[in-house]
């Protein structure tokens, strides 16, 4: 995780931006399931950060703040009247139920990625955020709770519910993950 502690002024921002842009985009992508929207959210978070850059005292807290801003922005957007998300019972037709798990060719790898992203979109936004923070970002329960502003117990229960929802959505589509549970 990049730190901006040694950075100063706009130069420090540039260094932080270069170090973290792709990681922030990836997190946004798994949170919203679309690269274009992910770029919108990531850019918005970096713009917000830049506007505060000179007033930031605790540069070690940058990553946590970016995560919090990103999650809040995407979860809030999913609840807005014009983009209210509808949960689905199953992933899209990326892989019909009952079809064997992917082999290891390039095409299968692409299909696997799409299946997981589709599965995540079927998970309620807050639970999805918990899963992304924990399994993509590698945060522990306490750090995830701090980002989301909730208790560690809530993170644990939402992890459990999120995993259940993800596996239910995946069905037979991704045997690796299904059997992992």
């Amino acid at each position, binding site marked *: 995780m990049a730190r901006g502690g040694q950075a100063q002024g706009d130069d420090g921002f540039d260094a932080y931006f270069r170090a973290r842009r792709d990681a922030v985009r990836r*997190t946004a992508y798994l949170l919203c399931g679309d690269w274009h929207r992910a770029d919108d959210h990531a850019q918005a978070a970096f713009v917000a950060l830049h506007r505060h850059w000179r007033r930031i005292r605790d540069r070690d807290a940058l990553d946590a703040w970016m995560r919090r801003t990103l999650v809040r922005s995407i979860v809030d957007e999913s609840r807005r009247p014009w983009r209210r998300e509808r949960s689905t019972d199953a992933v899209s037709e990326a892989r019909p139920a009952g079809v064997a798990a992917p082999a290891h060719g390039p095409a299968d790898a692409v299909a696997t990625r799409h299946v997981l992203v589709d599965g995540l979109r079927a998970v309620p936004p807050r639970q999805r955020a918990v899963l992304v923070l924990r399994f*993509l970002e590698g945060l522990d329960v306490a750090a995830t709770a701090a980002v989301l502003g*909730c208790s560690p117990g809530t993170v644990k229960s939402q992890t459990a519910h999120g995993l259940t929802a993800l596996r239910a959505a995946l069905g037979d589509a991704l045997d690796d993950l299904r059997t*992992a*549970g």
Partner: protein
Amino acid sequence: MDEQERDAGGAGGSDARLAAAFRDAAAHPPPAGFDAGDVVAASRRITRRRRSALAGGALAVLAVAGVGTAGLVGGPEAAPTSSAASAPAADGRRAAGPDGGPAAGSAPDAARAGGPAQQAAPELAPVPAPVPQPPDGTGADAAAGDAAAAGGGPPLGPGTAACADRQDPALRALLERALPEVAGAPEAAVTTECRPAGERGLALEVREGSTSGLLSVTYLPPGRAVDPPGVAEPPAAVARTAATASGGTVVVASRAGRAGDPSPFADRLDAVVARLAPQL
């Protein structure tokens, strides 16, 4: 993972497989759609826009206050000179003075531009996202909001920007009069998504007593319907909707920041939406 998670997540070995699958799913991003220059430019554009909105809003408040003061002090005989009486009130020293009139009226604008209320926020307060829009007109729009809020202007109506403003200063001016407790509240993070022209939006991080949450106001122009409440509506959200004087729709919603807490100002939303509807 603890026992509760293990029920759903299985043994620790699955954690590694899950993490690998998550990493792989996002491992091949397309070329980024923005660079550091875009971010810095958008940030500076917002700063310029806010300063412009601050100046326009403050001038409108001072003008309204000046006209009102002339009417009260001069009585009927002073009416012909009331427009001239507003000129001294536009003096910046007057606005910053201790007399409580114009200075009190400009307090929300100062807070919006990073005044004391915002500076007192935590180390990093969430701030608005860049909103694509034309460079001019925001200040005038904020002034229109002030005029509508003061009851001296027509309904605010649809926005005029090419993309709807997600943190609309005119809408904020109206809200702060309908619900003064949110004056100076930090703006919540929003996205850069270009909403259709005509809409207006506002999202604030608010606090009522010991509870905090998100208060949002959305204006939809005539002909644009609000989705019916859906299954994805967060359980803690409270929303009120009303038809506006311009034929549009206003939605005011409040959501607690943490599950189980009451939504801030939930018992005030009826009054707020009733006050906003004739002004929008």
